[in-house]
């Protein structure tokens, strides 16, 4: 077992981490589109998307339906449940719609750049995630695609490259509105990149490195409150005064970099039709659309890594996780059971909603609450089983079976690390959505004023103050002082 692992394991892990970093971004994108619609609706007191269903056939019908498929007959069946999943299916129908829509190329566009622009937008957004660590190590492997030293510099370089997609799209579309959108995007990027880079300098100074792994690792150390109390694994940059200001500046600049409201002037549908993507339709538009959400995810994950400890779980240092892997699995597994049982009860009670009394009794949507009750009960059962396995020492037994003593601990650390990063990223993305539906768009001169006259001086002053404090602290407390 061990020999086989050493021969092939490296390649498997390298492949897995490449696949993971693309999948991580691409899997959250549909979730975010759903979150955007549902969040907007709930903020505006609407129910939001809730109609597109997936009809699930009765299992007894499946042999007959397979026969129909093979004989190319039309599929006619009475579904047992019509699954709407609170509007999640709408994202799926969107993909189908965009994939099958007519792809129109206007005659007046600059063809080569017009074709390449959405590709640039999407691929740059995906590339940026390559340096974000989603765990410390797994059996000696770095848990990020690329282990480059200039990690954060790569992120800044890539985000400034990302504007080329928008700029080329705006210019090559060859009409005034798109060109204006592209111009706005590039001017906005240039203005906010400075503040973004300068606010990140504070993080370099406190970590002593630009490698995102190192920055995340430093934040996994205990947070010392005036040398009195030590909180484990909570040395997050956002809890230091300079770090907090840097976070606010970085986060505001991230909104501008991802072209999100209140800084979405490149789109500006009120005055610019659709801005840079006016001429795009079908899957090319989908690429721009997905790139926007991929950019949000990347911006959130970089912010989480720089200021919120990245993959670090609060109160549990990586060493603690590895030491008590089985206990943690047991506690978290069984701890999730009551939560899922609550969800099951809530799902069951949805049958009493007025909607279900209005639609006919034999409507397949009537079975939806029962279906979700079953799903949540299944999740509760699975987590309960995992918890029991944890309390019985399952991870230790797995490590012993695979003859790799650190396997169990590393597995737990990776799973918790990815979960922690995902939770932080989702919270960041939700804040972006939340701000979008709260704050109106800036006027162009206000945008430039804020960027050059407020954020840039603040970021510069913050860098000097933080540098001064680090030197002063070194003089006062010696090299091992708290942050």
């Amino acid at each position, binding site marked *: 077992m061990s020999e086989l692992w050493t021969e092939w394991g490296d390649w498997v892990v390298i492949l897995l981490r490449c696949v993971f970093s693309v999948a991580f971004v691409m899997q959250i994108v549909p979730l975010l589109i759903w979150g955007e619609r549902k*969040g907007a609706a*709930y*903020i505006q*007191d609407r*129910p939001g998307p809730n109609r597109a269903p997936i009809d699930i056939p009765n299992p007894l019908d499946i042999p007959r339906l397979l026969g129909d498929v093979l004989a190319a007959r039309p599929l006619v069946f009475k579904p047992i449940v019509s699954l709407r999943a609170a509007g999640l299916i709408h994202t799926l129908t969107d993909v189908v719609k965009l994939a099958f829509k007519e792809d129109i190329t206007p005659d007046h566009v600059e063809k080569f750049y017009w074709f390449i622009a959405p590709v640039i937008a999407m691929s740059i957004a995906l590339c940026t995630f390559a340096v974000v660590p989603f765990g410390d190590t797994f059996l000696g492997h770095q848990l990020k695609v690329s282990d480059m030293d200039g990690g954060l510099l790569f992120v800044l370089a890539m985000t400034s490259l990302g504007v080329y997609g928008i700029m080329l799209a705006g210019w090559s579309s060859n009409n005034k509105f798109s060109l204006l959108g592209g111009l706005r995007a590039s001017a906005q990027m240039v203005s906010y990149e400075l503040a973004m880079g300068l606010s990140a300098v504070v993080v370099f100074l406190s970590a002593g490195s630009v490698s995102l792994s190192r920055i995340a690792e430093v934040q996994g150390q205990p947070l010392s409150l005036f040398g009195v109390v030590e909180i484990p694994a909570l040395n997050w940059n956002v809890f230091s005064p300079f770090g907090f200001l840097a976070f606010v500046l970085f986060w505001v600049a991230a909104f501008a970099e991802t072209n999100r409201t209140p800084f979405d002037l490149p789109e500006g549908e009120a005055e610019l039709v659709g801005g840079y993507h006016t001429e795009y339709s079908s899957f090319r538009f989908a690429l721009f659309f997905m790139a926007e959400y991929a950019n949000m995810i990347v911006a959130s994950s970089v912010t989480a890594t720089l200021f919120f400890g990245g993959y670090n779980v609060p109160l549990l240092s990586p060493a603690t996780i590895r030491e008590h892997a089985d206990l943690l699995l047991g506690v978290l597994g069984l701890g999730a059971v009551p939560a899922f049982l609550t969800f099951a009860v809530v799902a069951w009670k949805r049958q009493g909603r007025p*909607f279900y009394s209005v639609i006919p009794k034999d409507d397949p949507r009537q079975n939806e609450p029962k279906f979700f009750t079953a799903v949540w009960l299944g999740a509760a059962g699975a987590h309960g089983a995992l918890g029991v396995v944890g309390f019985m020492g399952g991870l230790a037994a797995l490590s012993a079976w695979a003859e790799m003593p650190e396997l169990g601990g590393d597995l737990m650390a990776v799973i918790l690390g990815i979960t922690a990063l995902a939770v932080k990223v989702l919270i960041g993305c939700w804040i972006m959505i*939340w701000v979008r539906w*709260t704050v109106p768009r800036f006027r162009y*001169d206000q945008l430039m004023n*804020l960027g050059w006259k407020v954020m840039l001086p603040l970021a510069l002053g913050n860098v000097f103050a933080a540098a001064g404090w680090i030197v002063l602290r070194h003089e006062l407390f010696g090299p091992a002082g708290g942050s």
Partner: protein
Amino acid sequence: MALPKPNKKLTGSESSYLVEVIKGMVITLGHVVKNIFDQDRFRTIEYPDVRKPMTPRYRGAHRLLLRPDGGIKCVACMCCPTVCPARCITIVAGENPNDPAEKFPVSFDIDMLRCIYCGFCVEACPKDAIRMDTKIYEINAYNRQDMVHSKPYMINLMDRLKPEASEAYRADHTTAPAGHTPDEAPVAGGHLG
């Protein structure tokens, strides 16, 4: 850019903008939380499943009324096409000596694409032969011809609205069935032929 000065002087927290953004975000999050825990707050009507109850004075699609003896009330006096500001009513009058009213509409067409739902035809009618009390607002068709409501279609409109007929109504109310004239058969039957 020269911009007009705002009338009101901004206070410190307002000019920093960030505080005001957070205040706004607290308001919107309040809506989200309230809506998650009490989804009956939504005023949205789940339209095809739930229909909005219309007020009694709502002017929907026109219907033509019948006398107790089964004949059509309309005497083809041409008041409604005269008063109609959209000129969407076309009546072809005919005579029937067996009918106590003698004059009757051989055809009575309303072009719903032109109708502006002003209700003047109902006001003008001396015989209470036309009403707009059906509350039908789903007036649509796949072609222009079907948007012209004919006499038999408008006579039978209310039958389609009976509760037991509601499914059928939803299925076929958009197109006027050709030659479907059960109610007026005793009056117009012999005469039209």
